[in-house]
């Protein structure tokens, strides 16, 4: 019996492998003609090699999707992305170890200078906003899904000044919601993070009572802390009356806060997050008009905009010394900025797709990237 089964298995395996080989053989032939008919760009077929990037871990799951999508078109290209963090990513890029960097924060003046030395020519490097992610203020209150708050209230809560959920400051903005007298447990990030930086930037600019500057390292003294988004969300989930902040895609079943913008309360949504980027001016000290480094307008009153967002950039040279490297970078980033790439990221990472106008602006900039 045993022998018979084993022979059977071997036979099945043999048949299977032959069938697979036949499959792959039959697949190989039509593929080139297929792609050439689909992609009219003449260099599409020639693109091969390895593209290395490193940087913000916030982009990691989106990057997985972009890499898979890009490599399904360009099978000969390998895209590597090391999620070492924004600072590490910029350092690696400026050292010339990678072709582009992912970063949640903008380069400072010194890094702009280093970029001029790192890149070919003297035009330095530019930022392109590729990943917009709304940050949700999440809370755990039985039976409450959404609460309205203005920035001052949020700041007071995270400063430890409002300690119970039925405080008048919260209740006055939420008529009709029955708030329990549960004590508020503040949960913040223990590690330095882009989420914290954007959240405190919002509090510093939009509220009058936060009392700290924007910082990736939590400035307040009160509250519990968790390392990384997962730990923070876990703590909020486990603790009745807890409030924290996290990437909106991780909010899950937790309640979320609708922010007061102008005269209305705006819950987070993909469109609302993209809207605030379009409503924001470029940062001072940007490297020319191709450098899309935004100074996010946290105090915007634009209708339907959600100002608590994290914008993650790709940083790349305006001129590369190697044409192959230039081609790899620009075609990959064009894919990332395309509607398809943004959709991929939205479904994989829960990010908000950039607006169509911004997408075409980025594509135009990528067309101008030069090679020596």
């Amino acid at each position, binding site marked *: 019996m045993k022998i018979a089964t084993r022979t059977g298995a071997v036979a099945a395996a043999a048949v299977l492998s032959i069938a697979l080989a036949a499959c792959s053989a039959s697949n190989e032939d039509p593929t080139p003609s297929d792609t050439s008919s689909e992609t009219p760009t003449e260099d599409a077929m020639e693109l091969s090699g390895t593209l290395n990037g490193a940087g913000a871990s916030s982009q990691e799951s989106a990057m997985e999707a972009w890499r898979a999508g890009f490599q399904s078109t360009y099978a000969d290209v390998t895209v590597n992305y090391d999620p070492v*963090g924004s*600072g*590490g990513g910029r350092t690696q890029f400026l050292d010339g170890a990678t072709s582009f960097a992912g970063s949640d924060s903008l380069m400072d003046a010194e890094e702009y200078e280093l970029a001029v030395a790192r890149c070919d020519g003297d035009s330095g490097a530019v930022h392109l906003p590729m990943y917009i992610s709304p940050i949700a203020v999440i809370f755990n209150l039985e039976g409450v899904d959404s609460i309205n708050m203005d920035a001052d209230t949020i700041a007071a809560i995270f400063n430890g000044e409002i300690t119970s959920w039925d405080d008048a400051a919260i209740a006055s903005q939420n008529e009709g919601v029955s708030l329990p007298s549960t*004590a508020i447990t503040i949960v913040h990030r223990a*590690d*330095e993070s882009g989420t914290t930086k954007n959240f405190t930037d919002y509090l510093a600019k939009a509220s009058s009572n936060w009392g700290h500057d924007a910082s990736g390292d939590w*400035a307040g003294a009160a509250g519990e*802390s968790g390392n990384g988004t997962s730990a923070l969300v876990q703590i909020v989930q*486990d603790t009745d009356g807890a409030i924290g902040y996290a990437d909106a895609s991780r909010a899950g079943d937790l309640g979320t806060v609708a922010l007061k913008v102008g005269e209305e309360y705006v819950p987070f949504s993909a469109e609302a997050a993209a809207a605030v980027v379009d409503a924001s001016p470029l940062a001072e000290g940007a490297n020319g008009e191709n450098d899309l480094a935004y100074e996010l307008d946290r105090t915007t009153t634009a209708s339907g905009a959600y100002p608590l967002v994290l914008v993650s950039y790709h940083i790349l040279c305006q001129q590369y010394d190697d044409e192959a490297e230039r081609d790899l970078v620009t075609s990959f980033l064009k894919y990332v900025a395309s509607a398809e790439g943004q959709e991929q990221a939205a479904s994989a990472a829960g990010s908000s797709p950039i607006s169509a106008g911004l997408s075409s602006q980025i594509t135009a900039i990528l067309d101008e990237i030069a090679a020596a």
Partner: protein
Amino acid sequence: MTTTQDAPASAGSTDLTARQEQAANTIFRGLSTTAALLILITLAAVATFLLAEAWPALTDASGELAAKVSWIKPDDGESLIQIAGFLIYGTVLISAMALLIATPLSIGIALFISHYAPRRLASGLGYLIDLLAAIPSVVYGLWGAIVLIPVLQPFYQWLADYLGWIPLFAPAEDGTVSATGRVALSASIVLAIMVIPIITAVTREVFLQTPKLHEEAALAMGATRWEMVRMAVFPFGRSGMIGATMLGLGRALGETMAVFMILSSGLTYSLQILNAANHNTIASYIASQFPEANSQGVSALIALGLALFVITLLVNMLARWIVSRRAEFSGAN
């Protein structure tokens, strides 16, 4: 006849063996010397690396560090030196509490295995204790954060309600303790569970080496079993117990993941081990700040690592000194 035939043959074989033995000796000595040198070189390399990488942060006089590293805030009383002070305090406090919990338990377990348990149970229990040492710290961290802490939190509130007059168990101003239980005591308890196998394994070996004659002499003089343990086993094993404790302390000082996942961090010199945001350890701090650190930040973090290296070195030297002072009782001779 037989002797004359045998003599040259045996002479030849001794010759060969002698030469082989000599060669084996040389090779073996070479190998073990290399191994010993390697450990010295590694230690020197680590020390050099720490010093060289930390140098920019240690010698920063212009305040550039504060401008470049977001978690260094001299204006808020958090310069690198001050942070190091908070962290050393937190590290030592948490490790010391872990040892306070773990040492009596470990000695009890070791004593049970070596002198009280039936042989079969003893070997099984010893095996289980060794198994406990093999569980990765990240698993302890997850288990502590998700399973243990929610169970402990009501107990903490009870401690604060009834023993709050002890500074260690004092609650916050409003009479409550941390609602999540992510406090220094939780970290200490999980660390204690992690160092128990280490202390137990070493003390068990030492207890087992108590000379049978001492034990039998004590029993012959009419001592009960407990008196025998006190008169024969403990004096003999004292330096071994101290050495084991120091080994456990070394593990507790350097433990990263468990603390990283369990503790709500903060920087103070507070004694209140039931309130969140009061303590942090060096290793956990480095782990949480490293991912987003720029080059100056990395340098400052490595300076903190240097501080931990120095503390660990001091602990080991202290252990060495204690063990050597009582060398005549050492379990090793």
